[in-house]
């Protein structure tokens, strides 16, 4: 069968609608559309028919537009494509200019950071299950200039006596707070610590003045309790620490611990000697001052004969909101100087990330200032404070983190190892994130 339709007829129908604005509209030409049913429609004919149909629809659309009907939206919707957005007075950009992003690698990062291995297995006369190697970088962390040879590591704090802790930290340790060995076991077994730091704070003459020899026994207990590499920390008392660390180094002979720490305000020679005599590494601690760090490292190497593979630096960690800007930039400058060849700064770094818990935002129940917006629950505020403090320093080049809260340790490991490239995850399709129901 065949249908015949004349446009003039269409106009007549529309006229019957008695729309004023249509009066005077004439559509020129007498367009006749003849659609044959059945087979036998050749491509040339189909094209011609399509052309005619489009012409008609254009005219009809114009009429509809005059009637105030949103024709363009209808077209857009029915074609499922993107509408043409009319732009007054400007012509649309027709073509994309092709481009390629080329980025040079940093040629001045020519000096690798020293590798320092902690812990000793039975093959090396120790009793650790594994060793941990820090450093070795040829670029800033996670950069595309060079692969990072080793991931970041977390050593969790253990104390030789009960200490004051933020509530949300304390909840994790109440069962082991009087037993450093059990405490050490717990952080390795339950909280995935790569290493353990035993802080011998009770040795401080102003606290318990525990004799160095007694404190060394605690070190032995911890070495018995866990088989990961360990860090040994003193109390921070500059007079007592050298003796405490000497005795501890002796007790840990063969285990290649990290002695924390040598600093310019105590007898660093004794600490350095304790490390070299017993095959340990030493933490070179300075306070947010790159030149002091150079000076101490130089003294440890030249004056005390500490081998390059036995120095780790702690340039000091200040908490988020409490000087982290200095700590971050100090570390970043140290790492950049090392990569660019300053041999006094080419050492891996360690951060006392636990310092984040000194920030009132991490532990205080609510803001002491009533103008502040609500601070929300502190049990969520604390761990993220420790995470962001550590994460920031990881981006400045810090290798090892001394931490306290299990959640902080878990998330910091997740993000640093994600950036390092060892975390597999299903790729999330973000092409239309705007419309996501979140």
């Amino acid at each position, binding site marked *: 069968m065949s249908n015949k339709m004349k446009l003039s007829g269409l106009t007549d129908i529309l006229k019957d609608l008695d729309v004023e604005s249509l009066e005077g509209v004439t559509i020129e030409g007498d367009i006749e559309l003849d659609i044959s049913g059945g087979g036998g429609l050749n491509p040339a004919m189909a094209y011609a028919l399509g052309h005619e149909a489009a012409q008609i629809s254009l005219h009809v659309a114009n009429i509809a537009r005059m009637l105030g009907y949103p024709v363009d939206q209808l077209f857009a919707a029915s074609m499922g494509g993107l509408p043409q957005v009319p732009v007054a007075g400007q012509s649309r950009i027709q073509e994309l200019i092709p481009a390629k992003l080329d980025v040079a690698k940093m040629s001045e990062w020519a000096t690798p950071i020293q590798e320092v291995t902690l812990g000793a297995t039975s093959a090396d006369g120790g009793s650790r299950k594994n060793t941990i190697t820090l450093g070795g970088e040829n670029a800033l962390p996670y950069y595309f200039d060079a692969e990072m040879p080793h991931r970041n590591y977390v050593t969790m704090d253990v104390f030789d006596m009960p200490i004051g802790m933020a509530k949300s930290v304390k909840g994790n340790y109440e069962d082991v707070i009087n037993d450093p060995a059990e405490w050490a076991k717990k952080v390795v077994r339950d909280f995935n610590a790569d290493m353990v730091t035993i802080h011998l704070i009770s040795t401080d003459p102003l606290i318990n003045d525990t004799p160095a020899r007694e404190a060394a026994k605690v070190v032995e207990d911890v070495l018995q309790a866990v088989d990961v590499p360990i860090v040994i920390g003193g109390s921070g008392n500059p007079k007592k620490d050298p003796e405490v660390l000497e005795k501890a180094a002796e007790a840990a002979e063969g285990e290649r611990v990290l002695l924390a720490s040598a600093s310019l305000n105590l007898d660093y020679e004794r600490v350095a000697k304790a490390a070299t005599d017993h095959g340990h590494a030493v933490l070179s601690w300075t306070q947010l001052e790159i030149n002091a760090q150079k000076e101490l490292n130089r003294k440890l190497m030249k004056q005390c004969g500490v081998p390059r593979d036995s120095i780790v630096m702690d340039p000091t960690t200040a908490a988020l909101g409490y000087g982290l800007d200095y700590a971050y930039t100090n570390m970043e400058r140290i790492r950049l100087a090392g990569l660019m060849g300053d041999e006094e700064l080419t050492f891996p770094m360690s951060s006392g990330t636990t310092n984040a818990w000194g920030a009132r935002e991490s532990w205080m129940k609510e803001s002491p200032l009533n103008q502040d917006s609500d601070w929300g629950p502190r049990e969520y505020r604390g761990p993220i404070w420790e995470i962001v403090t550590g994460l920031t320093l990881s981006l400045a080049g810090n290798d090892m983190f001394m931490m306290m809260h299990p959640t902080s340790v878990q998330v910091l490991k997740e993000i640093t190892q994600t950036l390092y490239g060892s975390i597999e995850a299903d790729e999330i399709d*973000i092409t239309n994130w*705007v419309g996501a129901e979140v």
Partner: protein
Amino acid sequence: MKINSPLEAYKFLPGTNCGECGETSCMAFASHLIDRSLKATDCTPLVSEEKYKKKYDELEALLAPEIREVVIGVGEKAVSIGGDDVLHRHKLTFFNKTAFAYDVWDTMDEKDLVERVNKIQDFKKFYVGDFLTLDMIAVRSVSDDPAKFAAAVKKVMETTEFPMVLCSFNPEVLKAGLEVAAEKRPLLYAANKDNWQDVAALAQEYNVPVTVFAPNDLDMLKSLAKTFSENGIEDVVLDPGTFPTGKGLRTTFQNFLKIRRAGINGDRDIAFPIMAVPLTAWMAHDDDVSASYWETVVASVFTIKYGDIMILHSIEPYAQLPQVHIRDTIYTDPRKPVTVDPGVYEVGSPTADSPLLVTANFALTYYTVESDLSSNGIDCYLTAIDTDGIGVEAAVAGGQLTAAKIKKGLEDAGFDMKEKLNNNVIVLPGLGARLQGDVEDETGAAVMIGPTDSGRLPGWMEQNWPPKK
């Protein structure tokens, strides 16, 4: 910036040392141009006198930051992003802190939307003499319905002066939003490889900044940016896609590094501000706490490394507090002094019966203690000891805060305790408790130990002050 020494800038200045800018000489003015603390427009003769016009134009071109600066919004709340000249903050400083936009969406109930916008615009956190606040609202089209989107945009505009990001990949939806909000100069989000012609046309027609989005395709991203800017659309923001997990996040991080390094190194076609979308963390996590945590972690990474604007979802305080603090950390000018001058300062109106407190001269420590005292109406003398700008705990450990230093600090300030005080008491910070005996011996004063955090001083004062005889 194409020049880096005051001498190079000086060549373009009048050289008359007229002093209208407030500096003593044109050379002094030139050094401020180089450290970006003054602008060429601050030199009145250079701007106003015809004979200097050529030099002025040349100087402006030389001083223009490597990364384009883009302004979003109008009026007091307008936000500038980009404008950086360096890859590491210690090389100068970073300019225009990362703008934080929090999202609302067009399928929200009106009441919920208004409440959320108010929460975002009312957020504030006191810090070192000022408040940390948030910046923008991102309106997401979830419905894909132009009318619904326009209604949501309108509601946001009625509720806040915060600048907006209009988010949709459908040009019809964006157009509907622009018809309501174009005069507020919102940022369009986003042109991608499919819709770019239409979105470019909108950016041109309404004269608004626009984001180009090419997830993990840096060549396409550069191609879009180049095409836009060569056709007169200069206010471009780059979104290379924020993949929230695994290898995708690692690649995203490296994409940010590549874009910014290329831009700072002089590739003008890619030298635009970069957008991060930590909100995508919510596409990878089911529970709110995990999602907020991960979003905060992703936001921190891209605040530290080159994100100039970001779109976020969590408005939980435990997400926002670290976010505003890490941003302040990175964008604080490292050239500003670390210390306050040592001395004895009066807080409020102290009398002879007021306490004398001791703290470190690290600026952050000092201002924190000072604001805790003054905002709680505590009248006292506050002594900033010269600890080389190190905080109390570290200074006690490192020997920068000692009894001798405290004695010397009081002497140098000419503060005679016997004359000024009836009580002969020094209040040490709790973190300096171990100095108590030494300070008593050294100064002959009675020593009381304050709280370990100055936020607890009000409670401490109630219990301990005045001291019992």
